[in-house]
């Protein structure tokens, strides 16, 4: 083939792309910055089709950590957020970035670790005591280290325990991987380490290996998900109305029912709580 025959081909390739771009519903879509725990657990894929069918609005989901999701929204690059770190959320609202923060669901965090359980924390209902035991035993512990909601919860627990894990016993047992929940679980599985996970990601995670749930049922392990709209005064995002419709749908009886009926391996992952926030 001659080189000049190449250019019509090139044109076709470009045209093909233009067609794809044109085929997308540009006006009726919003960007939801959310956390890996609600996206990777399959919850959003389960509930979004019903919303899209009812309203014609497509929701594009960015699965990031809570810290990154709030940053994305603060840069105007998302239309609303669905996150789970109360402290960071309050700061986001206080900074004038967010408004109308509403709880849509809850579940809980759990401490998982190897069945051999070198720190002997199995069956405990006290997360802080369990972390103290892990630090005392200097058993390997995987930290997300990514400013996500789960990472924030972990650091809150260490503060309550009055332990600075990175500086305890040389710190080589404490492994900050700077990754998402799945990456942390993969790492913990490979290193026979403890880690803290949200229950949704844990239940749908496919590489549990020797890991098992060791600590659960501590009130301090409560995991609350809030939807927050962007403050139009600071973020004149063009799709505020569409974003509000989605937030209202999440809080509506249909949205709440869709959240509650989502199950993985027969277990309910998220408990709807718009009517009675926890």
């Amino acid at each position, binding site marked *: 083939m*001659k*080189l000049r025959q190449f*250019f019509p081909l090139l044109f076709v390739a470009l045209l093909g792309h233009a067609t794809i*771009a044109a085929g997308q519903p540009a006006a009726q879509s919003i960007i939801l910055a959310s956390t890996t725990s609600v996206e990777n657990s399959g919850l959003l894929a389960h509930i979004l089709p019903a919303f899209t069918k009812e309203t014609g609005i497509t929701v594009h989901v960015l699965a990031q950590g809570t810290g990154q999701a709030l940053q994305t929204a603060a840069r*105007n690059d998302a239309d609303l957020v669905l996150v789970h770190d109360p402290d960071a959320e309050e700061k986001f609202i206080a900074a004038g970035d967010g408004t109308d923060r509403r709880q849509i669901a809850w579940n809980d965090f759990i401490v998982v670790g190897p069945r051999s359980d070198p720190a002997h924390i199995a069956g405990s209902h006290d997360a802080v005591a369990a972390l103290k035991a892990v630090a005392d035993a200097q058993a390997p512990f995987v930290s997300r280290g990514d400013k996500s909601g789960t990472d924030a919860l972990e650091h809150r627990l260490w503060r309550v325990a009055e332990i600075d894990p990175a500086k305890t016993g040389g710190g080589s047992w404490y492994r900050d991987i700077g990754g998402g929940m799945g*990456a942390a679980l993969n790492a913990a599985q490979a290193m026979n380490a403890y880690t803290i996970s949200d229950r949704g990601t844990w239940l749908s995670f*496919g*590489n549990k290996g020797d890991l098992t749930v060791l600590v659960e049922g501590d009130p301090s392990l409560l995991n609350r998900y809030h939807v927050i709209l962007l403050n139009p005064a600071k973020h004149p995002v063009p799709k505020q109305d569409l974003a509000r419709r989605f937030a209202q749908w999440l809080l509506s009886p249909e949205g709440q029912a869709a959240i509650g009926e989502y199950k993985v391996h027969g277990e309910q992952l998220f408990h709807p709580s718009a009517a009675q926030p926890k």
Partner: protein
Amino acid sequence: MFDVWAALGTPEFVHIVGLSLTVSLSATAIAAALGLPCGAALAICRFPGRRLVILLANALLGLPPVVVGLALYLMLSRSGPLGALALLFTPGAMVIAQALLATPIITALAHRAVEEPWREYGGALQVEGASLLRSIRVLLAIVRRSAVTAVLAGFGRTISEVGAVLIVGGNIAGYTRIMTTTIVLKTSEGELGLALGLGFVLIGISIAVSAGAFVLWER
């Protein structure tokens, strides 16, 4: 591997493969349209700063995708200078990112390929009074085999890339999710077998496209 075969037939997967190919082929086409003539022109033209441009094209062969992605993110962000284009988290942004990565590769390789024939035929072309555009066309036609390799190297960069498209595309299901970002996602979900299976599919598709193009142009 049963999971992989089950996953392959789904409409989601067909969309993912189609988008991967569309994005990478578009980016390669843009990079070739820019890089081939620019590389040839660099071999032909003499202008101040030429050596610097050549040095730059070669130095940028190792451009880190994640940095390109981040820089492009800041440009395309709604609060960035190009925010009005509303390209962030769209396939268009992914095409731009990959084109930025592939253009230096194709430029540098095209420049290298055209240097030699220019020394050989440059005099004749100048005597003939050929314009720059005609010189570029004649020389690229002479080195077309090397040019194909340059374009395939560019395609190889785009189809295998994940760092930049993850940042500017956002890995949105059914919209900007492509092969490489799906593999990252499946790995993070602990579906390691499925991730590896998809990896083999990606390798197969990449080889098939490159081999197909090679055979087509070698004839």
